């Protein structure tokens, strides 16, 4: 079974030579290659308006690229939504559903009975810092809690690859750092592979093991492409990674690439 062997080494998520356009005429992104290994958290960094969200939409299968392919564990999933989970900047919790039902949404949409879905989701509330908020309405929760609920919903989709679009930028600075650290811990614990897009270099360096730097100004006819890749090494046992030389070195490299 050569195929099975190949699947074992295949990256969790791979974009090959991705070329995208908003209108089928003007290119936004040209020839982008991105790879996320199983269990790895990668970041895609670029300035606002360089087409980061467009890339994520294509990776999520919401749009079909002009050229290039999207592979999930080696399988071609180009233009097919529902295979990777996707989390946006806004928590997008449905205001008309209680937290537990919001969190269960992917299960219920896939045909699981409501009671069964609730039972399946309930054990995770503790780990996601949401204990006691099961029957609350989204409007009754703080921004940080809403974001964690959105993340639990994303997790319950059951996809092992998650795409995150500036997931923490709507939170205030203190909550952001807290939720970010919490996310890295949970992702590690659950063995998730994730691709996070952000314009915040600090966010990228503190979360990712590898950072792709995207550059270009599609609005003036310069399609974006990956101009460099920075590996981040995390000293073992270090509690505040943000204060280490390794952190600063990685940040410097990314800043230099962004120009």
């Amino acid at each position, binding site marked *: 079974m050569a195929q099975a062997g190949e699947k074992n080494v295949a990256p969790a998520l791979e974009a090959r030579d991705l070329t995208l356009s908003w209108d089928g005429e003007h290119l936004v992104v040209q020839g982008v290659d991105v790879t996320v290994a199983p269990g790895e958290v990668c970041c895609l960094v670029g300035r606002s308006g360089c087409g980061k969200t467009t890339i994520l939409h294509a990776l999520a*299968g919401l749009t079909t690229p002009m050229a290039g392919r999207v592979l999930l564990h080696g399988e071609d999933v180009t233009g097919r939504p529902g295979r990777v989970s*996707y989390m946006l900047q806004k928590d997008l919790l449905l205001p*008309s559903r209680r937290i537990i039902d919001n969190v269960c949404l*992917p299960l219920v*949409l*896939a045909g699981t009975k409501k009671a069964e879905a609730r039972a399946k989701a309930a054990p995770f509330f503790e780990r996601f810092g949401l204990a006691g908020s099961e029957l*609350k309405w989204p*409007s009754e929760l703080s921004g940080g809690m809403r974001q964690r609920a959105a993340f639990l919903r994303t997790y319950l989709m059951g996809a092992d690859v998650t795409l995150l679009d500036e997931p923490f930028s709507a939170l205030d600075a203190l909550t952001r750092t807290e939720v970010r650290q919490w996310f890295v811990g949970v992702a590690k614990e659950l063995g998730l592979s994730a691709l996070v897009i952000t314009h915040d270099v600090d966010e990228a360096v503190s979360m990712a093991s590898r950072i792709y730097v995207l550059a270009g100004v599609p609005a003036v006819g310069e399609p974006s492409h990956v101009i460099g890749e920075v590996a981040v090494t995390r000293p073992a046992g270090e509690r505040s990674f943000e204060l280490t030389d390794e952190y600063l070195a990685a940040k410097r490299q990314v800043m230099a690439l962004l120009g």
Partner: protein
Amino acid sequence: MSARPEPSRARRVITPLVTIAALLALWQAVVTVGIVPNFLLPTPVQVVEALAQDAALLAGHCVTTLAEAAAGLAAGVALGFAFAVLMGRFESFYLAFEPIMTISQTIPTVAIAPLLVLWLGYGALPKVVLVIVSTFFPITVSLVAGFRSVDRDVIDLMRTMNASRWQIFWYAKLPAAADQFFSGLKISATYAIVGAVIAEWLGGNEGLGVYMTRVRKSFSYDRMFAAIIVISALSLGLMKLVELAQRLCMPWKWAERNSNER
């Protein structure tokens, strides 16, 4: 913005009640003193007396008017809902009917009511049709706007969860439209009563509109006012009923209101 504190509940209830009482007293005084002759304007006391005297008769007419209004409103809501769903679902349907709906709204109800009576007779049908015509528009417009107000990102997110079109409608679009729908329904409820009364006025055998034309012909203005009171009461009652339905259908709205006040 403003630092002014919210008025207390008691103040919110008492202030308008006192105002109404003062206006009624003024009205009573103006007629009693003789500033306005009593044959032109009955006093509030006379109106209440007329209301008590004709209570049974009014109740009977009330049932007719309410039945016409309710039937028309139900049909108007059903029709408006169907139209709004089609307009939300098919862009060409939206483009085709959106202008027609706006134009239809400029046609005064009073002007088509006699035609409806002419075409459909003196029975309940022209009344129900007029109510449908006057309630359909606010329902459709509020629903179309509500369906369109749903966040594009929510739809994209649900697509990544493999949601079907129906699921997106049920979980995202319908709740997003609920608030505006109930606002439209509240307006429609008052239109329904008024529409039924106008249609009765122009021809019929029963209903508050018929009652009003009869008492007007006999110059019983006190009874006229009694009918007005009943019509307002019906409209208010129907509006309260819509509010109650909204409370039951949208429990999250009250949670939102509470957390905003905090």
